[in-house]
């Protein structure tokens, strides 16, 4: 029984201590924005109360065990209870819970407030990545819709409304430092407000089980200062510049058009006759979408944020940057020196091997021949070489 006490106390302590951990990117006790802060202000006292009650009960049980163990005493009086005591011990927890309930009520409605939103981003989940599109908002320089994936980029100190939906199954959007989870349900638009206090990268993960590669559906929110955010927007709106003639990248573009452009859109890419190349992922993929790769190298991740585009040292440089220098470092994007060659090449070589996906040709009958995820393309090493060179031009 004493061991039980140790375990019990140990547990409560560790629960409290969990709030003090550092370096855990998805720690639920380290709010970095007002919404998460509101939750934290509510949950900390609740945890404390729960911990105290837990200790009281445990101690009472242990005391009873010690005090009333069989020491040869006569059979105790056959009492059937004391109603007054019962009622008191019913009312006390009811009162505690009433107090908790009142604060819960308030916080629920505070968190649901949407009227003072300053910026809107549409978030669409699918197996197994997130798409972000920024509708036209001239006040932020977004004069055309921007579409990106892998990393959500937001300005700091701005109340951002995520309008979440899904293309296939239910996903859940969760960046613990910014707010609690909110499911992305197909056919519905769910509103989720986030706001970041400081520039930096905030990690999160899909938390509604969404099929085979659920574990690999991650997300990152990048908060930039307002000035840096304007630069980022400008970068995203830059028109497409085809690679120079007679370069490896130019050959890579041809490979891309042949192999990738069927699903992956690169805005502004044109055929020789001047018509725009429009991807048709709806013809090959169940969810009807594949990540838009315009300005791919301005992002730090790919494949649903499962892999980094930056190699380890460059990644560390960006993630560990202080809030002053972070923006500049992030906006550098991915240079050839910093590129995580091995993962990107591995991905191009055989994507399903690196991330479990339903792309087995024998299992496509139930989906009308459509894939769920990126299939094996059978690219040659030289094609891969060319593609990597081309992708590096998508700044």
């Amino acid at each position, binding site marked *: 029984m004493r061991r039980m006490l140790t375990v019990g106390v140990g547990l409560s302590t560790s629960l409290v201590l969990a709030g003090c951990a550092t370096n855990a990117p998805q720690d639920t006790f380290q709010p970095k924005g007002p919404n998460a802060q509101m939750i934290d202000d509510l949950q900390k006292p609740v945890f404390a109360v729960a911990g105290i009650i837990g200790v009281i009960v445990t101690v009472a049980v242990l005391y009873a065990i010690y005090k009333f163990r069989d020491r040869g005493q006569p059979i105790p009086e056959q009492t059937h209870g004391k109603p007054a005591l019962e009622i008191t011990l019913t009312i006390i927890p009811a009162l505690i819970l009433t107090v908790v309930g009142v604060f819960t009520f308030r916080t629920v409605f505070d968190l649901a407030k*949407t*009227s003072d*939103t300053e910026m*809107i981003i*549409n978030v*669409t989940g699918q197996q197994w990545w997130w*798409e972000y*599109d920024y*509708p*036209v908002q001239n006040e932020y320089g977004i004069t055309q*819709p*921007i*579409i990106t994936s892998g990393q959500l980029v937001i300005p700091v100190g701005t109340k951002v*409304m995520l*309008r979440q*939906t*899904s*293309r296939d199954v239910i996903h859940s959007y969760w960046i613990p430092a910014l707010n609690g989870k909110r499911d992305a349900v*197909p*056919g*519905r*638009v769910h*509103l989720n407000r986030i706001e970041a206090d400081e520039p930096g990268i905030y990690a999160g993960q899909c938390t509604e089980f969404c099929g085979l590669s659920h574990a690999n559906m991650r997300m990152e929110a990048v908060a930039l200062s307002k000035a840096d955010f304007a630069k980022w927007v400008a970068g995203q709106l830059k028109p497409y510049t085809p690679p120079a003639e007679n370069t490896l990248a130019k050959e890579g573009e041809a490979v891309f058009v042949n192999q990738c452009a069927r699903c992956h*859109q690169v*805005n502004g890419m044109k055929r020789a006759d001047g018509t*725009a190349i*429009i991807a*048709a*992922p*709806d*013809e090959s993929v169940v*969810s*009807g*979408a594949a990540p838009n790769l315009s300005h791919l190298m301005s992002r730090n991740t790919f494949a649903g944020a499962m892999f980094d585009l930056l190699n380890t040292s460059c990644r560390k440089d960006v993630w560990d940057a202080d809030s002053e220098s972070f923006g500049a470092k992030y906006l550098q994007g991915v240079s050839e020196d910093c590129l995580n060659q091995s993962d990107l090449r591995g991905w191009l070589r055989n994507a399903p091997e690196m991330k479990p996906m339903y792309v087995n040709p024998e299992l496509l009958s139930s989906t009308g021949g459509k894939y769920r995820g990126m299939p094996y393309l059978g690219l040659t090493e030289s094609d891969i070489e060319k593609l990597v060179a081309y992708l590096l031009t998508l700044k």
Partner: protein
Amino acid sequence: MFSTGSKYFFGITLFGALSFAVYMLLIDESAIGATALLGAVAATALLTTLVLSTRDGEAGEAGVAATEDTPTSSMWPLITAAGFVILLAGTITTTAVFLLGVVVLLASLFEWTVLGWSERASSDKAYNASLRKRLLHPIEFPVISAVGLGVIIVAFSRITLAISKDAGAIAFIVIGLAVLGAGVLFSLRPNLKRGIVIGISTVGALGIVSAGIAGAGAGVRDELAEARSEGHYTHQDCGAEKSKYFDKLPLEVVSSTASVIATVEIVNGKLTARAQGIPGDQESITIPRSNPSSVMFVNKDQEEHRLVANLGTKVISGDVKEDVVLCTQMIADGAEQVLILNIPKPSMAGKPYTLTVPGLAGQSIEVIVP
């Protein structure tokens, strides 16, 4: 009654039938293997019947008893064989016939088996018969009545399908009252002659069956046949005019408000849009690509209107293109309708996607698909 030989062949038949079923249902539905197996089953079944009827070709002690039994037992092998024939026919024609064969087969095998048991039960034939009755009546009775009721159900539905809607309701009343009336009559006159009771019941049953056959012969009434062939309610008509069927009785209220991505309204002759989560009126709405999104149309104008979504063109074949147009029904003031849009191509691909209202010239809401 099962002699050694017949047991053997019966076993083979059962085994064959089983493997046929397993083969066809689980392994392969291809015709060749199944037909081969079925042929084998039919052959052994025939042999079984043969051996059974000749009692293994023996004429010993058993033979004496067997001759007495034959009249009662001969019925079931026949029906079993008939079951096989139906089953065989079913594999060639339709599943329904196949199923009928299965049912006949199972039923006859079951009756046959019970008969076999009851006949060996004792040497007293009357007792055996009563035993069989006791065992089978509670099963046979509901089965026979269920089949009878099934006939009534089907016959009745054929009649009502053939005659007009109003006549159908009247027919319903007539039949209901007739049944009730017969019940009251029989109940109040317990001493009614048996012949009269049987007569009334037979007339009723024959009446409904023959009317049912007549109804089935006449086919479904003209309106239904027409509705079937023309697809009245699925044929959209997106002009400014009301269409005969598509605009019949449009829905007044929409229950799926929770999942609406944007609401389009006509107020004072002006078309405006509101998107969920975005404050204020919009002139354009953003819809995710390849994602079914519901747009609600609310008519607050005194005239009837419909919302039309113009979603570019799609290639039919080669150079032949067709405009993609979706629309709601024509709805009156205060009514709502939902349009589910699933747009696979981004709007930059060609001419812009718009939502318009026929009759409201020069106004449209742009649909942006990033």
